[in-house]
């Protein structure tokens, strides 16, 4: 049995083993020709227990993780939120992980936090802040899941104000601002970007 298979099997039987297996999992998977991040995600998906127990463990793994581990946790969230025959969906229990990532200055973590899980669960105020932070730090808005679906007047107003601020300073307005401002009533962006 390979290290990868052994790790997955052990975690299925003993959830706490995830703390042992997760940190070194990526390089050991790579050594066996398996994608490191994919194995990390699969280890989380293999966790037994009810949604509360799984969410608590995943949050601990995130808190103990380095950047690559935290990224893997963030990218596992949509799948953890998808129920299977042996596991219920985690629901919004892992929002603290998303909020933590959005507080960081690491653009990889911020981008990963604004995925489908945030689209589904993150409340409007925090989600809008996430979008503006992405714009502010140069994260392509294509990485923000559900931008068109969740875009609202308040977000348009915030991005319009951001564009005004940049123009007042003689600085460039990121082209991605248009992804928020385009096709909206001209009251905001017409003034800001023309």
């Amino acid at each position: 049995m390979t290290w990868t298979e052994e790790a997955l099997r052990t975690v299925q039987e003993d959830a706490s083993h995830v703390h042992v297996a997760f940190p070194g999992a990526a390089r050991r998977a790579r050594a066996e020709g398996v994608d490191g991040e994919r194995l990390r995600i699969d280890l989380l998906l293999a966790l037994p227990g009810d949604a509360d127990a799984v969410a608590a463990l995943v949050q601990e793994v995130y808190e103990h993780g380095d950047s690559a581990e935290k990224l893997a946790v963030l990218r596992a969230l949509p799948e953890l939120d998808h129920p299977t025959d042996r596991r219920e969906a985690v629901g919004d229990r892992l929002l603290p992980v998303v909020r933590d990532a959005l507080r960081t200055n690491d653009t990889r973590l911020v981008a990963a936090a604004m995925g489908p899980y945030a689209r589904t669960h993150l409340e409007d105020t925090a989600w809008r802040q996430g979008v503006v932070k992405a714009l502010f730090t140069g994260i392509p808005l294509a990485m923000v899941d559900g931008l068109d679906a969740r875009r609202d007047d308040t977000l348009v107003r915030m991005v319009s104000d951001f564009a005004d601020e940049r123009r007042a300073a003689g600085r460039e307005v990121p082209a991605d601002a248009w992804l928020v401002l385009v096709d909206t009533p001209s009251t905001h962006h017409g003034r800001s970007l023309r």
Partner: protein
Amino acid sequence: MRIFDPHIHMTSRTTEDYERMYSAGVRALVEPSFWLGQPRTSVGTFCDYFDAILGWEPFRASQFGIAHFATIGLNPKEANDPRCREVLDVLPRYLEKDRVVAVGELGYDSMTPEEEEVFEAQLALAVTHELPALVHTPHRDKLAGTRRTIDVVNASGLEPGRVLVDHLNEVTVGEVAGSGCWMGFSIYPDTKMDPHRMVAILKEYGLERIVVNSAADWGRSDPLLTLRTGEAMRAAGFSVDDVDRVLWRNPVEFYRQSGRLEIDDLDETVGAVAGATFEGNSVLRGSRD
């Protein structure tokens, strides 16, 4: 000139240092966990510090085109504080992380029994986690401390070739040369070692198992003294290849023993900024996972 600084404390340095280092040819570095000047009083502050040198600091370095690795350990000074001893209990989970390329800095400060116990315990962890060890030599009573360090290494079961004994000088280098351990020299503006004394040591002892670092931190220090040492080597007649060996291939060879130094990535970063921008793939994918 490509430079791998095998010992530098970047949390204490500015973004301007990163820019100057990149311009000087630094493309990779190792940040050992160490004493922060202000004594710590709990395990939690160590964890936050370890997380910073494995999280935020590598990200910061990547923005300037420099690959960042770390060594993790309980330093000898704080090994004497019982409130910090519990750090030993959290080390196993850190020593499994991808960017950890050695256990360290370990060794002696005042050569107390507590320091010795913590030193030995961490050499044992190096064996368990299949990592090399970075060992600091004491500022005071240095020669006796260096000899005792080698005795402890020899008793640990860790091969001498997997141990780097650092902050050496003219008096202590001979002890380490004969032990089979790697010899580290910290080039400082006016204390531990300077570029010209370093050249004299290279002439006497050769280039094998020798690495040169800036050990730049929050004290009077200079991250470019690795470059200055390379220049002094050239001026003294060493070849470009000799300089490359001391400033790049030797530290790579030592830390590669961890199995965690992504050497192909390092070679790619030489000559090109593989920074954390969204123009490249690196940021989108995070690490090479």
